[in-house]
């Protein structure tokens, strides 16, 4: 589904990704871990199409489509979804209008008519109950005055509404208490399907207790230095990252 080859990216003069390779197949969950500053969030931003990052080399293909050639909005319509580490507050834009515009943009892209009001509301109800998001929150301005947990649940709510092919979760567990972590994970797990893939970026093993990955990759200094199964996460949790750095240097 997703093929990343030799990806290099920089912000200003600062090269952050230095030849990253990753292959993600439908139905798989890939966890990406790594120390601070290793390039995890940059990878997420580059995949979603954030303009501040400049791709200097490499390719990214989603089902054969060159993602790097597309605007952020077109990537989303092709099925890429980024759950933000820090969701943005947008005063004055209601969460529902926002989602309706997004759903209709995707439908128009597929040559389909806009969603019927009734169908949309049914979908909203279903998805907000999935992440236990208070019905009133979906009517308020996007993320405005939401607690940290509510913001993250709102991300998963949006993901459920938009039904993307490729879900990228950027430190969705940061700032969550145990209960919120459980709810968010439940939402993600409910969305697992044979034709949907996930890239889960996290610092901590604890998220991976709830969302069980098929692969764990360690990102360090802009490249993936080690890949393994879910047990690699446990090893990292126990031993930290230094041993990998040593392994590399050896």
């Amino acid at each position, binding site marked *: 589904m997703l093929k990343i080859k030799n990806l290099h990216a920089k912000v200003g003069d600062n090269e952050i990704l230095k030849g990253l390779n990753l292959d993600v197949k439908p139905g798989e969950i890939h966890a990406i871990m790594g120390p601070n500053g290793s390039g995890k969030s940059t990878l997420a931003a580059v995949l*979603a*199409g*954030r*303009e501040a990052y400049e791709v200097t080399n490499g390719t990214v293909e989603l089902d054969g489509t060159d993602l790097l050639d597309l*605007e*952020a*909005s*077109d*990537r*989303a*319509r092709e099925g890429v*979804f*980024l759950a*933000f580490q820090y*969701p*943005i507050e*947008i*005063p*004055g*834009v209601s969460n529902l*209008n*926002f*989602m309706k*515009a*997004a759903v209709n*943009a*995707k439908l128009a*892209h597929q040559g389909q008519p806009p969603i019927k009001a009734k169908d949309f509301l049914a979908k909203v109800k279903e998805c907000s109950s999935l992440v236990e998001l208070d019905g009133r929150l979906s009517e308020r*301005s*996007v993320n405005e005055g939401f607690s940290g947990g509510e913001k993250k649940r709102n991300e998963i709510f*949006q993901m459920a509404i*938009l039904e993307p092919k490729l879900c990228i979760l950027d430190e969705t567990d940061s700032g969550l208490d145990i209960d919120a972590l459980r709810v968010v994970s439940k939402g993600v797990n409910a969305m697992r399907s044979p034709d949907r893939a996930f890239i889960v970026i996290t610092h901590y093993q604890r998220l991976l207790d709830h969302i069980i990955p098929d692969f764990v990759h360690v990102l360090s200094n802009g490249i993936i230095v080690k890949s393994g199964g879910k047990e690699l996460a446990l090893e990292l949790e126990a031993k930290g990252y230094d041993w990998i750095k040593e392994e590399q240097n050896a």
Partner: protein
Amino acid sequence: MTVLTDIFKSTLPPPTRKSERWKYSPIAKLLNSNLSTDSSVIDSVFSNEIAPNPVEGLEAYRLVFRNGRFDSFLSDLPIAKGVICMPLSEVSVEDAPEFKNTYSKTEWVGELNESYHQDGMFLKIDRNIKLDRPVLIHHLTDGKDVASFPRHFVRVEEGGEVDVVVWSSATKNSSGMYNGILEASIAPNATLMLEKICNEDGEVYHFSHENIIQERDSKFKMHTFTVKGHWVRNELEIISQGKGTDSVFNGAFLPTGNEHVDNHTIMDHTSTDGTSSELYRGIMYGNSTGVFNGKIFVRQDAQRTNAFQQNTNIVADRGASINAKPELEIYADDVKCSHGCTVGQFDLDALFYLKSRGIDEKAAKALLVEAFLADVISNVPSAELREEIMKIYTERHGW
């Protein structure tokens, strides 16, 4: 056609950039034109471009002025108990209102209006009378180098209530000067709502000045929308003369191309327990230039005043600019005043967030603009007016 040969021989000199109040709104180009007032016979065709009622579906009484002169044929005056509404030119000498604004004595623009004013509206609402529909003043500028000098007078007696809409339009080939003054006084417990919309094609220099005097416990609520206009200066002066007045005045301006929009406001609290709330929002596109200057005075006797002012500006394009200046002068010690003024760009984080959900850049900006304007526009009393304004903004900026 009356050529205004002595227009620059007024007692007061035309403003120059040396004056702080006019520093960012130079009028040199206007001073080089040969202005005339229109004295041709008013014919039956109003305009091929513009309808006499500019707001679709708005049920309102109507006073239509063409190049400053009243058009009785196209007007629809209210006939109601306790309401006097007529063109100023038809008011008898003994009933003629006394204009008290100092603007006519201290400013070149005001003096011109006083010297040349042709006509305007006289509106008087008696005690406890509430007019059932808004009164729409529609002013059309049509012609080259035309100068018009409307002058309106509104008095709302105790407990009365009225909504006045002042809409100005101009045809594509128009140029010259619109120089309008509206003076209103609001008696105790009375309410005046005022919506002023400038939607002018052509190249008219638009000067408008509202002078509002509020008596005890009166309410004033105004919205100023600069929808389209070559060069526009909106001046508003509110004087709170009695205790417990409430003043709300909001504005939105979205100039583009080489347009210029200037908003100058003065809120003068001279008595106790008054509240005022001001919100002006601007988005500057293209090579447009903007000015915001909001002065709030809280005089020594105006204890327990609660004044709020906010001016938020987005500079959307590289060539655009705005000069914004809030000014507060507070002489009383028991007051609550807050103000904020910002000049920024579209929130790139918000834009990316919207785009990352599949909404394209144009639609994402439209959502942000709509949200930005919502706080200003949602308080306009008439739904038809709200829709018309949004419609024009949308068409203009292609959202």
